[in-house]
């Protein structure tokens, strides 16, 4: 059994209440940080832990914190990104729904480290019920003196607010989140300036994912060094993985960084193998934005060693043979899954979610979706595959925010690794699916 740092007490009674949370050692890190440590010492522990942002990009959290402009004379803000909208990702939801106090505890300690007087949790509008859970927990924290004026007599004061979004994926992008929080249309800003210099209302701001902030709690409790002992290389600690797709046990798993992908898919502790005893065909290991990998590239790296669940190992080989850990949305496809349909589905999502600010993404996402739709429904042409490749190439890297890249990568990877399936769709427009809309077995996939 791997160690659990975040979900250790998931199934304890009343863990969602202040009482239950305190019984299981809750709010120790607040006591420790506010009473015994300076803000810089807290930041130092986070740096030592090697924690990397769990929102997708994997940027070192301690490093990000050190970029915060502390001399501007303006208020500083910590924003928790709870907009979790990436298809395939649902880990933050579990954390907030079941153990809301863990996030609040992390927010208090992190805000203390960053010197924030007010902090916000920006939560996606679809999680309205979780907003209520969080608000209840925040009220409990105020009542216990963990929030508000002069917390635990330390002289440090913090107000924490939860703010709902209105149902846009793009508001998970940090600058769009800031715009939305300011009450504006959620369009990503053009960077620089980065939020650490000019973010919310022009003030220095840090945006962190729910899981990143929650991870600060065990880091402060046990020390950064202890946290860094888990994992391999620059991937330290534990990571929540949202596993879905054709597996026996979909769900959220906390893994120690560094277990092998094969173990994660096949062991009974985690996904429990492919459903219905079918073969593994492909996997999107980090949420819909990251490249899909066929089974032979997924399980092994180019040097023949097993691929591990770490930032480095999953991206080994670049996009030619690798992918990304991303936000940990692990989507598994069995041999009957239709890659073209899946790619179309993702393209549909990005088409729907593009904010429409910059032309390559606004126009390109719709175009890709329509071409993919044609191929999927038997109206495709061979040239369409090259056209798709060309469109994605012209979007990637040419947009304001990474949503453009996120729309381009899945299409590129699907064509790169599964071109034969696209060609098959074009060649046999009427033969692609049986009535359950699953792929015909005539197409054999590569064996590991």
């Amino acid at each position, binding site marked *: 059994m791997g160690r659990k740092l975040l979900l250790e007490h998931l199934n304890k009674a009343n863990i969602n209440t202040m009482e239950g949370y305190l019984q299981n050692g809750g709010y120790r890190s607040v006591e420790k940080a506010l009473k015994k440590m300076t803000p810089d010492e807290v930041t130092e522990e986070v740096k030592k832990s090697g924690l990397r942002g769990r929102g997708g990009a994997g940027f070192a959290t301690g490093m990000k914190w050190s970029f915060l402009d502390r001399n501007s004379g303006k208020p500083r803000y910590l924003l928790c990104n709870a907009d979790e909208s990436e298809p395939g990702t649902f880990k933050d939801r579990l954390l907030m729904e079941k153990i809301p106090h863990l996030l609040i505890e992390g927010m208090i300690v992190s805000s203390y480290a960053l010197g924030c007087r007010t902090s916000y949790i920006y939560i996606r509008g679809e999680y309205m019920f979780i907003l209520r859970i969080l608000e209840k927990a925040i009220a409990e924290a105020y009542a216990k003196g963990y929030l508000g004026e002069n917390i635990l007599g330390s002289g440090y004061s913090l107000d924490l607010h939860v703010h709902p979004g209105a149902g846009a994926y793009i508001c998970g992008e940090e600058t769009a989140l800031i715009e939305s929080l300011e009450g504006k249309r959620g369009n990503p800003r*053009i960077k620089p300036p980065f939020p650490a210099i000019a973010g919310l209302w022009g003030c220095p701001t840090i945006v962190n994912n729910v899981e990143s902030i929650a991870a600060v709690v065990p880091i402060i409790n046990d020390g950064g060094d202890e946290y860094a002992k888990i994992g391999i290389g620059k991937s330290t600690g534990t990571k929540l993985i949202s596993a879905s797709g054709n597996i026996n046990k979909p769900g959220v798993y906390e893994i120690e960084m560094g277990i092998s992908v094969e173990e994660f898919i096949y062991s009974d502790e985690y996904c429990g193998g492919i459903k219905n005893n079918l073969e593994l065909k492909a996997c999107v290991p980090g949420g819909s934005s990251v490249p899909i990998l066929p089974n032979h590239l997924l399980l092994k790296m180019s040097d023949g060693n097993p691929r591990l669940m770490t930032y480095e190992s999953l991206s080994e080989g670049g996009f030619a043979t690798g992918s990304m850990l991303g936000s940990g949305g692990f989507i598994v496809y069995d041999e009957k899954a239709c890659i073209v349909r899946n790619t179309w589905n993702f393209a549909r999502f990005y088409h729907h979610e593009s904010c*429409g600010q910059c032309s390559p993404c606004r126009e390109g996402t*719709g175009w890709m979706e329509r071409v993919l739709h044609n191929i999927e429904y038997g109206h495709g042409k061979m040239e369409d595959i090259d056209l798709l490749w060309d469109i994605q190439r012209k979007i990637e890297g040419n*947009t*304001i925010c990474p949503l453009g890249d996120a729309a381009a990568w899945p299409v590129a990877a699907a064509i790169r690794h599964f071109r034969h399936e696209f060609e098959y769709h074009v060649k046999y427009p009427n033969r692609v699916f049986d009535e359950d809309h699953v792929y015909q077995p005539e197409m054999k996939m590569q064996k590991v």
Partner: protein
Amino acid sequence: MPKVTIDDITIDVPAGTTILEAARMIGENVPPAMCYYSKLKGSGGKCRVCLVKVTKGSEKDPRPMPKLVASCRTAVMDGMEVKNVTSPEVIEARKGVVEFLLVNHPLDCPVCDQAGECHLQDLSYEHGAAKSRYEFKRRTFETRDIGDKIKLHMNRCILCYRCTQVADQLTDQRVHGVLGRGEVSEISTYIETAIDNEFSGNMIDVCPVGALTDKTFRFKSRVWFTKPVYAHRNCTKCTGKVTLWYQGEEVLRVTSRKDQWGESEAFICNECRYDKKATSDWKIEGPAHVDRHSVISQNHYELPFELPVTQKKLQ
């Protein structure tokens, strides 16, 4: 003063100048701009046609920038080296952007009122492909009156956001903005014909395409059959410096004066624009400078004037 080299031409510019502005100072191979408007704060960065390649970040940090950058929103650093037309990657990306801009833009210039002074028309003429690869239905909207003087033809809009910035920055009553998202986002007012302020007409001038047109001028004449003449009057609200567009003896419309980048030199008020259409209202200065090379400049009213350049060519 930071020194920047664009396409092998070096120039000293004031700190904080963007790459695009530096290129305009040089005056050669200037990246095109569809959404950037030097007079509007916060404009630019959206259309992506001005993408350039930064091959050297600065003297201090010579690393190249990993992606193409929007030249209109990237400040120059001392020692920066930029490639615009000398980079095949930039040309390729720009061609891609033009294609994207035309994906949902109707290709009906012959019946569009903006033809002849449309920046997208010029841009696609210079950078686009002759044929579109897009085979699907374009998005469509109803045309709408968004003020008593302005027609909104959303089908033609490329979402440059300039008109919303005019609304924000020239007036204190902002009543329109962008609704919806992605491809189907639209410039709109919540209430039809809601736009009613003294500077609203400038929205028409900043629109790079035929999305916002002057209802008092629509379909009266092709722009290239009208003759632009500079004129001025004493106006209490604006500078009163305008361009009158004549057909014969009749003033068909009044607009602001445009500089060589197609931007208004000074915004004008609605009184000058809509209510002063008799020659007797104005002091005539003479034929207008038309510097942009577009369909309209084929009439060669006059030679383009020399650019005020402080450039230094390096061998």
